[in-house]
């Protein structure tokens, strides 16, 4: 099948996408089927298969994030669909430099998201402040404001790097040791 072929320059989707890979037993019959699996595994499979991000573009990283969601890379095929409101979002992508003026707004929007929720810190500025670390108006890393699950390195990260960060988050969800979730 076509999805078994490697796509040059693009990360592969993580394992565990097919139901057979997470279920203990799958019985298929014409017109339907029955899968036997743990409820946890089913929930994690559902959560990682429909990660709806609240985008939070703060600087040039937002351009790469937009490119990632656009047609060339097309995250819709992994169930990643943008949401304009925190009420409908599962994961917050912090893309850019966090200033001390923006930090309370980030915290508010994070608190408005429903559980389970995750955070991807995209780019060096959101990870650590990078070369703006000691600037008078910059927070040295968004993890001073909200807990972060995945850090994506780069200045800015390529769309492939952001996709790999999303897949890393999906792997975390599938592993299932999510005390907060």
């Amino acid at each position, binding site marked *: 099948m076509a999805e078994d072929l490697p796509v040059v320059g693009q990360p592969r989707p993580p394992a565990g996408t097919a139901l057979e890979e997470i279920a203990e037993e799958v019985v298929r019959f014409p017109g339907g089927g029955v899968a036997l699996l743990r409820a946890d595994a089913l929930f994690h499979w559902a959560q990682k298969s429909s990660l709806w991000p609240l985008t939070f573009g703060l600087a040039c990283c937002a351009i790469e994030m937009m490119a990632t969601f656009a047609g060339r890379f097309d995250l819709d095929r992994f169930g990643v669909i943008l949401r304009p409101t925190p009420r409908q979002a599962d994961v917050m992508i912090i893309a850019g430099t966090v200033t*001390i*003026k923006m*930090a*309370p707004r980030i*915290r508010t929007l994070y608190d408005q998201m429903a559980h389970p929720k995750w955070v991807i810190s995209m780019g060096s500025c959101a990870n650590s402040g990078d070369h703006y670390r*000691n600037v*008078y*108006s910059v*927070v*040295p890393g968004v993890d*001073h*404001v909200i807990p972060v699950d995945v850090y994506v390195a780069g200045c800015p990260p390529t769309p492939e790097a952001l996709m790999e960060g999303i897949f890393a988050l999906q792997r975390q969800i599938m592993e299932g040791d999510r005390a907060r979730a």
Partner: protein
Amino acid sequence: MPAPEIVEALRVRFGAEPAPLGVSLPAASLLAAMRALRDTYGYRSYVTATALERDGRFEVAHAVRDVEMNDTLFVRVRVQRDGAEIDSLAFVYAGAEWHEREILDLFGIAFRGHPDPRRILLPDEYVGHPLRKDFAIETPWGYRP
């Protein structure tokens, strides 16, 4: 660069001295000189304002533009560092309002008669003016969550 006759007229009328890209004015004659530049000498557009700290004093530079003559004139005013206060140009050039708020925010120079003297870039509860020479880089750590 402004035409030499404009610099000479500003010198005679307002005590201006030649300065890079324009003139340097005494603070007392700033408002009258800017009104004259706008109404008489054709500098009808406001471009930007900036400030710097040098030799223990602040220097505020307003840039105004004459579109027909294709010329930008910098008007510089020096103020004392402690309790710095100069006249606001917001009612002469409306575009000056936000530029003066930025200078107020980052340098702490007060603008007399400004219609809305609040910070514009930093949070309202911020203490200090970060582009002053004596501002320590450790200062904002208290604001970091």
